[in-house]
């Protein structure tokens, strides 16, 4: 475990609530990134960041130093994201070209694409398929895949975050990869 995290946790537990600020400042951006990858919506991710740190603060007594503080925080983030997705089933990560947020990201991509519009078009089609496929994954598969593929957590760490055995975490990733590959088949070769 990160020694400085442990030291801050000890200070907060001893009653120095303001010390919690260090943990918030250190981990906010990675929590935001994970929440965004899981929900696909910026405003949801911001809400989840706040909810995650509030929960972490209130449950700090339950934190055991067996895993790192970051892993524990990720677990809370994943749970908050699942709660939010359950309230909005099948609408969470699904975005469309009409989505203003998504439109904005395309606009930025257009400006940077420069001289190769066909390549940019192919990129868009692939991204759209990835987004659609991600929204079809189960919550567990999506969480496991996002943490392995985007966040670079090891399968063992993912198991700890999701409270799964390593084999179950592994199989969630396998299933996610299979589904993503299936949905990318029609556009295979577009970017080559």
């Amino acid at each position, binding site marked *: 475990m990160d020694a400085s995290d442990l030291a801050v946790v000890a200070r907060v537990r001893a009653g120095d609530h303001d010390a919690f600020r260090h943990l918030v400042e250190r981990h906010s951006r990675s929590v935001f990134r994970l929440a965004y990858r899981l929900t696909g919506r910026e405003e949801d991710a911001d809400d989840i960041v706040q909810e995650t740190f509030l929960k972490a603060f209130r449950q700090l007594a339950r934190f055991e130093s067996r895993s790192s503080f970051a892993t524990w925080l990720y677990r809370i983030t994943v749970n908050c994201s699942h709660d939010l997705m359950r309230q909005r089933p099948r609408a969470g990560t699904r975005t469309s070209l009409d989505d203003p947020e998504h439109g904005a990201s395309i606009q930025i991509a257009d400006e940077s694409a420069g001289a190769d519009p066909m390549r940019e078009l192919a990129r868009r089609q692939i991204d759209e398929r990835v987004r659609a496929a991600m929204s079809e994954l189960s919550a567990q598969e999506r969480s496991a895949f996002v943490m392995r593929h985007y966040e670079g957590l090891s399968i063992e760490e993912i198991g700890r975050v999701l409270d799964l055995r390593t084999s*179950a975490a592994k199989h969630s990733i396998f299933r996610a990869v299979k589904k993503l590959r299936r949905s990318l088949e029609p556009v295979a070769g577009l970017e080559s």
Partner: protein
Amino acid sequence: MTHLTEDDCVLHYYGEAGDMKSADAHLAECESCRRTFEELSKALRAVTGADAPERSESYGAEVWARIQPRLDAPETQPWPRRLAGLFTWPRLATAGALATLLMAAFVAGRHWAPPAAPPVPVRAAATPAPTAVRERILLIAVGEHLDRSQMVLAELSNLDTAGPVDISAERDWARDLVASNRLYRQTAARDGKTAVAGVLDELERVLVDIANGPATASPADLERLRDRLETQGLAFRVKVLGSQIKNDASRPLAAPAPSTL
């Protein structure tokens, strides 16, 4: 070394294969495995998606400013969680006992109470009837229950494996769902919602089998489950029922439309 499966290639891609050196050596000499690995790598490299929006260096301080005043406030749970809290077993058991007592008191009153004075007309209340509120709460809870059940069935039907696979997580999930399913089924049957009760009855049989089954499933077990779900059309019916229930639950209470179920 034997040929690499697609799953082996996934582990290798992420640098999590048990023996990376052997895998590398095999890929160097086996064209078929190399092609499989290259195709997989290409697909995974394509999965980049839009970058997560950047948050500035001051983001942590902004988050702190927003949460700091709330740190010492008592925790308030979101309403679905509070609602879910209403459906814990002890509460439901107490509610059931109270309902039985009320029913007994009502029946007793009908049979043994002395004749009452002529009834005085009472103006209908403007607020929704308690029955309507109760039905609404039940609809929301059943809708959420069906969502969760659908996820378990989808997880299991989408498992694609060459050998035995660990389904202990799904089994635990099914165990949790069996208890609530039974309660909702009984309530639906009592309220005369035969279509809902019928689907919940079939769902319960599948959930019970999963809950009482082994922690690992063979490809043949999974195939049998898929066949069963497809033959009965259960996954589809659970999905349709879930959508109908959500529509019913979203209608305003003041002007309730007749239930489609």
